């Protein structure tokens, strides 16, 4: 049994919870379908988005340079981080320079990838997540179970009890989500007003203008950047796109695919710091990406815009949950990204796929996610992570099938097979 299958088995033991999990994400898939149906040009948009990404990734050096020089012209300070360690040190350096003791941040899978929060905390800096879901799992000491809905695995009661213990809510037993959200808002407001810096990720970096674009539903990225006087934005190299025309294509696809909304409540464009604030810092993070681009079978994984729709549609993700995967990004794209990150450590996820290919039919940028999982399976022997039982079985099958006589004997034992029937025309 693979690592994933063992955890999935545990997940399914709670039948009521796992049914709820499956139904919840299927409902998101259906909302996405409804939104996509509303756009007659949907399939053309996907094709266009895919082509823009292929073009950008294959000319990434030019677009990165253009983005960085435009951002600098706008007054931003641009940093290049080779890996996670480099990134964390750059962030810490900026914070130290400004004497920052507390930082508020909006949701960023990149900071998760780099382990930034624990690093900064070890340096004595308080890090406060301001996306509600991220804040909840931060207080619980958990990792996200989904990239767009990180705390979806929790119930209102669990959140209510957490907020009581943390002193965020003051009406014991009131686990009404609207009430809990209101209390979280009050508590976060204090954090926004007392933080020395705000950090955001980025959904897109626009090469032509040097802008970064952040999409949220809670407005927390805007609070994080408009309260503190220092804004640090972190983006992976693959987030850069050519121009605003390209952005228009992705903007129509991203939120419809992710949550089934026509657009996020807030789409914020940041070009330069506001008057009176310190210059904006932009950190471009490689952390493996430039190597992955050179991988002939798997470079297209970098097209991903992190909408999470492959998770929502994946019948295995819906029935096994985010924590059954060893990489912090679960589901089809997570299986692929995990293998790029560390194939030996994450080989246990490639079994989590029936090759149904729903993921690549949903993907707004048309990544061949299922086909890549098939490819990874072929590569397991080279990593030394192919399951022994499966190999023996496949070798055995190959031997029997390669010898028709052996095959005839084997199938004849089971029942009267087709090949032994008389197939005359008048039969």
């Amino acid at each position, binding site marked *: 049994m693979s690592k994933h299958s063992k955890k999935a088995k545990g997940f399914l033991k709670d039948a009521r919870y796992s049914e709820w999990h499956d139904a919840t994400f299927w409902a998101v898939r259906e909302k996405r379908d409804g939104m996509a149906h509303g756009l007659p040009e949907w399939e053309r948009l996907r094709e266009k988005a895919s082509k823009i990404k292929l073009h950008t990734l294959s000319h990434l050096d030019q677009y990165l340079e253009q983005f960085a020089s435009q951002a600098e012209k706008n007054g931003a300070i641009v940093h290049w981080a080779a890996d996670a360690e480099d990134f964390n040190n750059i962030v810490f350096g900026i914070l130290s320079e400004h004497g920052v003791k507390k930082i508020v941040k909006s949701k960023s899978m990149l900071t998760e990838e780099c382990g930034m929060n624990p690093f900064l905390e070890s340096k004595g800096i308080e890090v406060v997540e301001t996306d509600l879901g991220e804040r909840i799992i931060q207080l619980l000491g958990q990792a996200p179970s989904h990239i767009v809905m990180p705390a979806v695995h929790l119930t209102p009661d669990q959140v209510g009890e957490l907020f009581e213990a943390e002193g965020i809510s003051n009406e014991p037993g009131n686990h009404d989500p609207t009430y809990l959200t209101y209390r979280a808002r009050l508590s976060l407001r204090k954090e926004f007003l007392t933080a020395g810096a705000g950090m955001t990720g980025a959904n897109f970096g626009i090469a032509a203008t040097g802008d970064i674009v952040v999409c949220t539903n809670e407005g927390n990225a805007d609070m994080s950047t408009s309260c503190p006087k220092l804004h640090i934005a972190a983006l992976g190299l693959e987030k850069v796109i050519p121009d605003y025309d390209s952005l228009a294509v992705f903007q129509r696809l991203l939120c419809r695919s992710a949550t089934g909304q026509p657009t996020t409540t807030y789409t914020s464009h940041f070009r330069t710091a506001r008057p009176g604030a310190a210059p904006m810092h932009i950190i471009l993070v490689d952390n493996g990406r430039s190597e992955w681009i050179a991988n002939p079978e798997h470079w297209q994984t970098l097209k991903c815009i992190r909408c999470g729709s492959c998770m929502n549609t994946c019948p295995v993700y819906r029935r096994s949950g985010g924590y059954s995967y060893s990489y912090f990004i679960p589901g089809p794209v997570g299986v692929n990204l995990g293998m790029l990150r560390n194939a030996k450590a994450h080989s246990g996820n490639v079994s989590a796929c029936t090759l149904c290919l729903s993921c690549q039919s949903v993907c707004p940028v048309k990544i061949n996610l299922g086909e890549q999982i098939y490819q990874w399976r072929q590569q397991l022997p080279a990593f030394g992570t192919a399951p022994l039982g499966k190999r023996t079985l496949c070798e055995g099958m190959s031997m029997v099938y390669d010898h*028709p006589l052996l095959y005839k004997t084997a199938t004849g034992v089971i029942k009267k097979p087709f*090949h032994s029937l008389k197939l005359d025309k008048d039969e």
Partner: protein
Amino acid sequence: MKVGLFIPCYVDALYPQVGVATLKVLRHLGVDVTYPKGQTCCGQPMANGGFESKAVPLAEKMENLFAGYDYVVTPSVSCTAFVRHHYPNLLKDSHTCELASKCMELVEFLHDVVKPDGPLGSFPHKVSIHNSCHGVRELGLSSPSEEMVAPFNKIRDLLQLKKGIEISEPERKDECCGFGGLFCVEESAVSSRMGLDKVRRHIATGAEYITGADCSCLMHQSSIAKKNGLQIQFMHVAEILAAGL
């Protein structure tokens, strides 16, 4: 037009009646079809499991066995998809693969090449179509629910030739049933749950039969139905088409 009948290993061993029905339908429609001896397996199970190299000798064998036929027709979706999409790569070092372009799954062959338009006997029962993943997303037997394209279903088109038939599709009409070849062994818990969910949705349509173009999905679902005491019958599309001919 010379047609070779390809009967995949598990159809041969476990569902010989599906092979017989395929032959019957093809002959009924006047197709010149023969069954070359010495067939075993196309190699798909090993390749999907991650051992593509074990499928290469089998691909060679298949290629030789079916040389000289105009079309190779089989009552199996996933084997067709494997031959079509993977054989060219498996055989790239030795020669150009011919089988990939002439291998057709039964439904697509009937629908796109033979194009029967008259009635094809009767089948006065309610059926629920199982749209298997590789049929939907690799062979294009029906429009994928994920894609915003005009809806179509070749299985439905053919079944409608049967007098008295009532056709339905389950909720989540093309979600995977959880078979997935070695997936059902390696991820047995998820696989069983997917199968159970699928069978229940088929049953909810009120159908007497679950039908589809892939024996493997039907095999998986029938074993789940049996294990859970669920009452529904299973018939391959070929068997329904051949009924009463």
